[in-house]
Each structure stands twice: as structure tokens, then as C-alpha cells.
């Protein structure tokens, strides 16, 4: 099965929201800081529920934080 490539702007969004720390974002989104690190490094694609929670923390829509960039590598 081809992997979906999902890009995100979590790092940029954090800085645009008062340089929010990874730990603060993790606490507010309900995940661990390690998951935020993996997300920002493009090593992890979150579940839909976590993606919505992260977008909600930033007051954004899911499309503003996560971008579908093709389905083949």
C-alpha cells in the first residue's frame, strides 16, 4: 500500500502563537512532547483525532495545519 505523504506546519504555527513550547502544545493537544517532535520532523502522521486537536489548539482548520501532498513515494 502506498504511503500517504502528509506535511504539516506545526513548527511554524507554534512560533506564530507566541512561541508556544512543544510541551505546551502537547499538553493542550493531549499527546506527548515526543509526538510533537516526531510530527515536526515529519516522522509521524497523527490520527485524525489528534490532527483535529492540534488544529483546534492553534484556532485553525485542519487544512491550515496539515497538507495532503500526494499518495505515492
Amino acid at each position, binding site marked *: 500500500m502506498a504511503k500517504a505523504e502528509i506535511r504539516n506546519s506545526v513548527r511554524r504555527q507554534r512560533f506564530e502563537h507566541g512561541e508556544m513550547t512543544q510541551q505546551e502544545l502537547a499538553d493542550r493537544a493531549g499527546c506527548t512532547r*515526543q509526538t510533537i517532535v516526531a510530527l515536526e520532523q515529519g516522522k509521524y502522521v497523527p*490520527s485524525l483525532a489528534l490532527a483535529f486537536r492540534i488544529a483546534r489548539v492553534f484556532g485553525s482548520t485542519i487544512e491550515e495545519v496539515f497538507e495532503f501532498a500526494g499518495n505515492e513515494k
Partner: protein
Amino acid sequence: MMTQSTYRAAGKMIIWSIVLVVFIALFFGGGGAGGFAHDKGRIVAVAILFAAGFTSFFIMLARSGKKKDGGLNRDERDERNEGKAAEITLTIILVYVYFLGIALWAVFQGKGSVPAGWMWFLAYSTVFLGMIAHGLFTLLLASGKVGNGEG
């Protein structure tokens, strides 16, 4: 800083690696598989080792419960990593049991029977291998060394 998942995986690996080393020393150091099934001293020693391993393991699990500040130390990524590690471990165990079984058959087919000590070895070592492999692959997946970029 580790999540609960990686802390437990590291603890699991360390505890069961120590148990495996002591088990191998007891098993092969005391005369090997040939006389193991009739050597009550070694059987009891390995049983105590097995119990000590599980006791240490459960103490480690109990000590790595909820964070003191109430924060989250485990999430969906940890659960996914542990699930993937379990899948890999299952395959490793299947292959291990298959090859050890075939090897024992190849070595002892001319002798008519396999020493019962090897059944003890197979039973214990399968448990130890499963624990160590699951801890190892949970750590590797969490570090992004294997299986990252989930999509």
C-alpha cells in the same frame, strides 16, 4: 526524556537480557541440555530466576505508572509503536521456534529422541526472546530508526 512506553521498553529489555544471560549460564554451565531435565537443582534455580524476572518486571511496571504532575506520558504514537513491535516480535518468535525445532530434529533424528532439557530451553528462551525483542523494537520504532513516516 522518555515516555512511559519507552521507559518500560528499556526496563523490559534490561531485565530480560540479564535474566537471559543468567539462564544461559545456568543451562549450559551446568552440563547443558542432556542432564537438565534430571537436575532438580538447575530446574529450581531457573524457576527462581524466572520468578525473579517477572517480579522485577512487574515492579518496574508499577513504578512507571502515572506522572506525578498528572501530565500525559503515553499517547497514540506509543500505542502504535508497541503494536508494531508486537507484530515484529510475533514473527521473530515464530521463526525462532521453527528454526530451533528444525535444528533439534536435524541434530537428534538419528538418536531417536530429543533430550527433554531442550524443551525446557525452548520454553524459557521463547519467553525471554519475546520480551527482549518487544522492548528493543518498541525503542527502535520510538526513536524513528525503523518504521517511521507512518502514513
